[in-house]
């Protein structure tokens, strides 16, 4: 299924907590159900991505390695 990407974000080179804050700020500009595309580094950034997304109620649509970084699609969850 092809997802329509509402916004793309490259956070390679960033470290915690800036990684999640950049994602959080990008999600703030989207509507519920919109999909955010993120390119992020291997290691700690990708390790904590799913946890942070799930804790805040967003869904990981896909996650795959691309060379030395990762590409993720996150669907914005309902605002509590």
């Amino acid at each position, binding site marked *: 299924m092809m997802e329509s990407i509402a916004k793309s974000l490259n956070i390679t080179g960033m470290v915690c907590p800036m990684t999640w804050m950049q994602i959080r700020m990008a999600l703030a500009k989207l509507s519920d159900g919109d999909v955010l595309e993120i390119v992020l580094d291997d290691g700690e950034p990708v390790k904590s*991505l*799913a*946890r942070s997304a799930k804790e805040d109620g967003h869904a990981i649509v*896909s996650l*795959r*390695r691309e060379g030395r970084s990762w590409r993720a699609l996150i669907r914005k969850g309902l605002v509590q």
Partner: protein
Amino acid sequence: METRTDAAEDPLVSMDVTALKTGGIIKQRQKDLFTVRLKCPGGRLPLDRLERILAVARRHGRDYVHLSVRQSIEIPYVNAADLPAVRAELGEAGQGIASCGPRVRVPTACAGCEYNPNGLGDTQKLAALVAERYFGTGRFPHKFKITFGGCPTDCPHSAQADLGFLAAVEPRWDEKACTGCGVCAVACGEGAIEDRDGFPHFIPDRCLYCGDCIRACPASAWSAGRTGWIARVGGKHGRHPIMAANVATFLWDDEVPEFIGAVTGWYERQGARYRRTRIGTILQDDAMWTDFLAALRARFPERVLPGNLPKPQPLSVHKPYQKEYVDEYASGGGI
């Protein structure tokens, strides 16, 4: 000219010394001044008690408090004559004084699972329980410290406690849910998950039960299997540090009090013939280690690890005897 104080004028003549008997009050270098160590289990302190501590410290201490390395607030420079008032004023707000001596001390703990993203167990709940049920108890030959860590990162140093508990989760993999993205192998810091042909291969012997794979998995293919507390015994810091030995895994919350009772009961029983000796030092004796494990296995057959377990590991603190050291020392070079 020296001024003499009439004995009748010395306020300590008539002081009620019960305030000193239960410990937590430490004599300072300065004459008649004491440091009051407060009971702050797990380092958690409600704000109303913090306000009372501030007021008491302003009234009876100086212009600061000290945070001990075991999460207690200490009020230094309290005059001996003020100790009963300090105890009473703190007590009105529910703030207790800590202990010292050969007893169960105030437990230490990390923040636990309530708001720390890595936390796997409710360390604060168990620290409060120990403070309520075991604090100040025991007829031991030496002190007994209990520590709770909410994950294997072990920020509160459970490996250096007489009895340490670490929250643990055993990961379980669901093949049907797995998308083969490989992020679990990246997340695992122990090499316990290897990415083989696009799917995770789990190597249980390497797993620390930290749950990093479960949290990192976007598809919830990794989930919690057995959960509970790893128990380790016999650690200490001080002049002769010892690293605790893991003895049990996946103790449930409600098994923890009985486990504490089993370990402290053994220490009371077998420690009776020792003077000022920590449990980790007693356990260096092969016969004692065997007896200890047998006592625990009798009560927790499903939880205590099988086989010949390694004893708590002392850290060598003295330089090994070598002739050149002695010669250097003899020649005034020092060691």
